[in-house]
Structure formats: C-alpha cells, structure tokens
C-alpha cells in the first residue's frame, strides 16, 4: 500500500502537530509520514493499492 497527497493539495501545505512541535511539509513527506497522517484521517491523504 502507498499513500499519496490528493491532487492540488501539496504545494505550500504544512501540517503542524501543536503538542509535539513537529511539522510535515506535504511536498516532502515520506511514506511513513503520509501513513501517519492517513491513520489520523487527514482529509488530504489517500491510500493507493500497489
């Protein structure tokens, strides 16, 4: 399974984790980070079967 950012959503988009002082820039996100966001039901991330 791979995780992708929905079209038109990646540019300049930053996901902030308020209580962890961490941020993910969607354009540069790793598969691990995208999976983390998908598991959190982030509306911009979708699962793609290989």
């Amino acid at each position, binding site marked *: 399974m791979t995780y992708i950012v929905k079209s038109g*959503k990646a540019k300049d988009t930053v996901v*902030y984790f*308020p209580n962890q002082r961490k941020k993910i820039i969607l354009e540069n996100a790793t598969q691990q980070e995208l999976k983390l966001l998908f598991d*959190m039901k982030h509306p911009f991330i979708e699962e793609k079967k290989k």
Partner: protein
Amino acid sequence: MAIANYAKTCTTNIPGNQNLFFLEVASVATVTVTALEVAAITFVAEATFHEFDADIDSIKLTMEGAGGSSFFQNNKIESKFSKMTKTLVTAKQSLVNAATCGAVAIVLDGNSQAWLVGWNGTELGKRPLNKITTNFDSGVKPSDEDTSAYTITLEGETGYDPVPFDTTTNAAIVAGTSALITWNS
C-alpha cells in the same frame, strides 16, 4: 519581515460575529496550513469543535496588542448566554475546565470569515485561550434588558493573530456542514 504594500479591498465590511465553537487544545492532533490559511484540522480520539449558541450580537473578538522592542497581544472572546439552565451551567463548567490547559476556538465573523483563535503557526498550541472570566447577573425585574445571562470570556496572551480558514474549509463552516464541528441540530 519587511514592510510590503497593503492595498485596501473595496468591499462592504460587516462588524460582529455569527457563530462560536470551542475545543480543548489537547484534542487538536494536527493543523494544516496552506498559504497562511487553515486548510484542515485533525483531532485526537474523534474530537470536534463544539457549537456554543450565544445570544444574537453578543460574541465579541478583540485583539489588543502593544510593544516596541518586543510585542504581545491579548486575544479575547466574550459571549453572552441568556437564561440560567442546567445545560448552560454544564457548558460553562466545561469551559472552566478547558481553560486549565487551554482551549482553541473558531469564530465566524460578520463578513463570514472563520478564524482559528488560540492557535498559530509559530507558537502552535502552546499559547491557547487559558484564562476565563465569568459573570452572571439575574436582573431584578422582567423589564431588565440584557440580564439573567452568563457572560463568559476566554482569553490568551500571545504574539500573534488568529488564523483565517481557507476558502473551502470556510465555506463548509458558513454552510453549517463542516466535519470539524459538532453542530447543534
């Protein structure tokens, strides 16, 4: 940040606010920002913002800032809720509890723009609305206008302004369909 041009937009400005929603800051898992606007929020354990039906024309958002070599700003939301009931007491107590560790709010203003208050892209969730003031006045007779109401004020000291929601997310809040919020039916 260098000073840049500011051009006035020639559209009607409508003061005041329409809706108010609160959530404990600890229930916010992530905030997604595109071009300085909130594009999405995810939550811890299926939480959502909660709608607080304030009296019409009673929600006031103020931002009072001062500084020179340093700067601070106090972001404050004041709202009024008429008629003391068991439900109102419970709702008020939930805000009192939330203030302990901080709350965030969505305020939908008179121009139909929603703002995330108590969170920003620099301090993140570390400077939420963490001070609460409550005031109830029963009034003395039926004709005492604007009494028998709880005035609840939540505020927080920060260095930054509230953050606006982007067009898509804002439209869902205006329409009353946003999944970020548990709506009153």
